[in-house]
């Protein structure tokens, strides 16, 4: 009976995750394009991985992924401050949760299209505003290789803020109120209370958001694809985007699978490292 209930899910896991993952692992050691048929698969050992280490676009994409990670703690910091304010210092906290959650429920395509227009170098409202303030040469944002990545990161923070905010608010609500009462009686300031009660007791939440945030960041694709198509000059390309291009546009199935394996190992390593490191700073 147990197999009947769990069977469909187990079958799904097997067919849609485990078998593809093994397949992907095997393909990463091949030179193959899916258009040529299975009989043309040729094993080439570690050649793909050796080639990846010299592939400038791939290394650039991987580097961009690491730079983008900065958006995770930045967004979490903003979310934490807003969460503290919203839980105890405003009227109508529910309305604020909805406001900051808006970008998260809006489709990434719609959001990306709007920002493309807002960031338009010559007639976008953002630069219109900057010119009105007297900025002579406002940045070209998504069209400028040195501003494109920061712009994408800004949008990532804007989109994901709501999730971290809601999770932080839930964490704050779990902190026993008498801790704050005792601290207030002892004359601790709000800032001191934040430093010695709120922040330490939220470390499990922070840890959780950091791990999921970093993993989510490595998987970012849709925003990059719709917003910039990896450009200009690969300045916003990321591993998953490069993988998509290699597999479905350049049709290099084997080579793309090697990229996937590197992505998988990185995700696994981050999770493992965090897991090991957490006992040094997380209070449960």
């Amino acid at each position: 009976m147990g197999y009947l209930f769990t069977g469909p899910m187990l079958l799904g896991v097997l067919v849609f995750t485990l078998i593809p993952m093994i397949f992907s692992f095997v393909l990463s050691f091949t030179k193959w394009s899916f258009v040529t048929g299975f009989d043309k698969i040729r094993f080439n050992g570690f050649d793909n991985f050796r080639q990846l280490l010299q592939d400038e676009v791939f290394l650039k994409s991987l580097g961009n992924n690491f730079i983008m990670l900065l958006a995770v703690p930045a967004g979490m910091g903003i979310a934490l401050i807003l969460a503290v304010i919203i839980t105890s210092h405003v009227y109508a906290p529910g309305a604020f949760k909805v406001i900051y959650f808006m970008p998260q429920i809006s489709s990434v395509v719609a959001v990306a299209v709007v920002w493309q227009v807002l960031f338009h170098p010559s007639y976008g409202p953002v630069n219109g505003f900057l010119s009105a303030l007297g900025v002579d040469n406002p940045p070209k944002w998504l069209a400028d290789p040195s501003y494109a990545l920061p712009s994408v990161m800004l949008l990532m923070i804007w989109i994901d803020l709501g999730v971290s905010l809601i999770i932080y608010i839930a964490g704050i609500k779990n902190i026993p109120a008498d801790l704050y009462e005792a601290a207030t009686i002892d004359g601790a300031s709000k800032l001191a209370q934040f430093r010695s009660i709120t922040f330490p007791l939220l470390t499990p939440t922070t840890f959780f958001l950091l791990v999921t945030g970093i993993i989510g960041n490595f998987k970012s694709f849709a925003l990059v694809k719709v917003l910039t198509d990896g450009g200009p000059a690969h300045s916003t390309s990321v591993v998953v985007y490069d993988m998509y291009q290699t597999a479905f546009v350049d049709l290099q199935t084997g080579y793309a699978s090697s990229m996937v394996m590197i992505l998988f190992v990185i995700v696994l390593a981050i999770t493992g490292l965090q897991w090991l490191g957490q006992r040094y700073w997380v209070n449960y």
Partner: protein
Amino acid sequence: MGNLTLGKAIITLIMALLGIVFLLPFIWMLSASLKPEADVFKYPIEWIPQTLRASFNYHSVWFGKANFTLYYWNSIKVTALTTLLSVGVSSMAAYGFTKIRFPGRNALFVLVLATYMIPAEATLVPLFIIFRSTGLYDTHLGLILLGGFSVLGTFLLRQFFASLSNEYIESAQIDGAGHLRIFTFILFPLVRPAIATYAILRFIWTWNDFQTPLVFLNSKTLYTLQLGMNAFADRNGAFYSLIMAASVSAIVPLLIVFILGQKQVIEGISLGGVKG
């Protein structure tokens, strides 16, 4: 106390202003969707349009050459069926893993847990090949199956099933009910709030999914709204008022679902701490 409330009011006001700035892109989008094209880039921005062209804009998006209605229908179909399938498969698995004892249960659960660490992006290429050789490529069925067998729902729902007392099951079993009966008529109604939470989250994620349809669909007539929107934006690159009308249209169903199920969404996110 009077002082304290005044402080709270001031902070609320400041936060509200920040909130408006945060929402400016949406306000701009709505405002641009109501204007004639010539006014979209006027500076200073006309937040409240001087000339209204809303009915023309929305009419051209919905009934123009863009097939927008078809994309909308495709999205509704795929999203609704994915959500249904996913709720069914996940709640059954959650019940099985918490309420039925069977050999290998824990090992199998650990296996499912482990696959959760595999990013969906890592299986796109092999799945694409598998789908092509099984005829699932370029079908809605393929998308529905992929979304319907996601592990996340099992995790979310498992917590709720685990919190239900086993006495319900034991007393039902004494009355001669089997697991199928117990699941359908006793436990399923009890976990309805949890099911609603997961269903709403799954609905939002599926509606917004861009990556899966992009990889697994080819025919324009099968496009979901996200792909359709993207194609529409590319084709109408010069008509921003129309693009904004399309964007507003794409967000409206989510806004409705979110407003109706706001409590569930927020609870689900904070409980499971989930995304994707």
